[in-house]
């Protein structure tokens, strides 16, 4: 699938406008939600924020670097487990959060080195990442029994790790954040990661990453090593997924091997596909929409939610392969330009070719 979006051509202004609008909306949610939602709603939104960050990770690596990571759940799971194990051993949550980012990044760097420097083709990368996540699932799933422990943390096999201590302010272990606090942490982190990824993409490194997605051969012939850039992008995305895993573990205070599972990897692919490949807003929006759908489906017992997810996935591939955000964006700009065009026909009007 060729991502057709990310059209900075002449769209610098619009891009900046979109960024500011997203940022404003994010900040409004961050400070508004605790005052308008009840505890249950806020907890649910915290979960959305964690999964939206997971979506960002997939959206970055797939949509911008063009790396078909089909096992992004591996990094979510590693992040969640790294946080859980570290915080159970250390008490204070500051270092564990860093572990949740660093462990998946190290793992991704190693795996990525094998894949990218081994000149493995795109489809094979999809299969290998997917396989790795399945194997991790099986591995963690088989850690039942008290002999599988890391320090004070028992891995617990398919039951997972219960009662994971929540985040605390640095230096104050034993004073975990309350529901509001976790929300601020999760949503704040989401906004931060979004801003950081935007900055990365605007940097020269980001431009080269996108250029490699567009044409690897040309990038090589002007002196860039695609293997290195892909490896770095893959590793960055793993770090984001790891942080999402940490938030996910905080959200439920619990983690189990299902975070490594195929359904998890499939879900995040669907977030990106539904929201829009080649955007950052799309995957976040997709995460919220799809999770809302799963929760709705879960409240009735007639149909299994996988059926809905499968139909959404097939439907979008066949009918709306570019995703919702690009479609909506195109529509809205066309509308705005039509109005503006009547007043003052400017050069902008020619820009919305698609």
């Amino acid at each position, binding site marked *: 699938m*060729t*991502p*057709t979006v*990310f*059209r*900075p*051509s*002449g769209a610098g202004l619009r891009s900046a406008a979109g960024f500011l609008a997203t940022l404003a909306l994010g900040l409004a949610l961050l400070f508004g939600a605790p005052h308008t939602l009840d505890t249950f709603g806020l907890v649910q939104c915290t979960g959305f924020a964690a999964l939206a960050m997971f979506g960002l990770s997939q959206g970055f690596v797939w949509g911008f670097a063009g790396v078909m990571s089909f096992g992004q759940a591996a990094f979510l799971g590693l992040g969640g487990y790294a946080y859980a194990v570290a915080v159970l051993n250390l008490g204070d949550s500051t270092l564990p959060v860093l572990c949740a980012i660093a462990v998946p990044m190290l793992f991704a760097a190693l795996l990525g080195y094998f894949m990218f420097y081994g000149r493995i083709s795109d489809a094979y990368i999809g299969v290998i990442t997917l396989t790795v996540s399945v194997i991790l699932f099986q591995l963690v799933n088989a850690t039942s029994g008290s002999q599988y422990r890391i320090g004070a943390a028992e891995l617990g096999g398919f039951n997972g790790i219960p009662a994971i201590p929540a985040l605390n302010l640095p230096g104050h272990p034993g004073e975990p954040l309350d529901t509001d606090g976790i929300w601020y942490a999760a949503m704040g982190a989401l906004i931060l990661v979004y801003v950081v990824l935007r900055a990365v993409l605007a940097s*020269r490194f980001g*431009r*080269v990453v*996108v*250029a490699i*997605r*567009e*044409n690897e*051969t*040309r*990038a*090589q*012939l*002007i*002196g*860039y*090593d*695609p293997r290195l850039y892909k490896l770095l992008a893959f590793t960055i995305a793993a770090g984001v997924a790891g942080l999402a895993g940490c938030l996910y573990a905080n959200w439920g205070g619990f983690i189990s091997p299902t975070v490594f599972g195929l359904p998890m990897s499939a879900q995040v692919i669907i977030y990106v596909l539904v929201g829009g490949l080649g955007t950052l807003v799309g995957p976040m929006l997709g995460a919220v929409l799809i999770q809302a759908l799963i929760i709705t489906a879960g409240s009735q017992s007639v149909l299994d939610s996988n059926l809905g997810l499968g139909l959404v996935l097939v439907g979008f591939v066949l009918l709306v392969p570019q995703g919702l955000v690009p479609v909506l964006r195109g529509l809205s700009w066309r509308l705005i330009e039509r109005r503006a065009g009547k007043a003052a026909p400017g050069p902008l009007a020619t820009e919305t*070719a698609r």
Partner: protein
Amino acid sequence: MTLPVPTGLNGVPLRPLIEARGVTMRFGGVTAVAGVDFTLGEVELRCLIGPNGAGKSTFFKILTGQLKPTEGRIALRGTDITGAEPHAIARLGVGIKTQVPNVFNGLSVHENVFVAASRRKSLARTRAIVDETLTRLGLTGIARREVGQLAHGQRQWVEIATVLAQEPELILLDEPAAGMTHEEVHRTAALIREINRTHALIVVEHDMPFIRMIAKTVTVFNQGRILVEDEVDAVLADRRVRDVYLGKQAA
């Protein structure tokens, strides 16, 4: 009849810009390039001609590291670059416009050139190169257009712009005039002559009038070997060259 001077011939110790010795490329049972010796001096302009399948594009791919030769060595200013990665060779100062345009289709003209210019350079320097290159190639008017939506000829120019923006020492152009209008061909020829004032070039082309416009020395490839290498008028008058172009190579 004067042959281009290879290293050390007649006791003249010239260090060539690029030197290929005994380069051979086999694909399974097919030998695409067979024992080619090729030398290019500093700021030299060389045209490569030859029928389809003569091995010209394969030879370009070997020079740029896209293919590793089965046998033989290639040196760039005395540095052995045989089998080096394409990006490493590009960093040593080799730029190529490929036969099928390789551009970043989803990016704007400006961004294409920017990415090429920006490697290891300050932002100010990069911007200066981008502006200069766009002006030089007359692309300023379409700088914000997405390259994927441009006409074929324009895409060729964008690719040439990317190659120039990376500031290479040696520029390889694989069929730069293909698909261009008459007027564009003239502009391309003028551009090549201008570039050649400061840079070495190797140009693969089929268009004989175009070759006459730019060439001093011509190397003719046939069936993976160098058939003849001489001044342009001598080559174009050569019987063997006519033969390979006029059907004797049809088999």
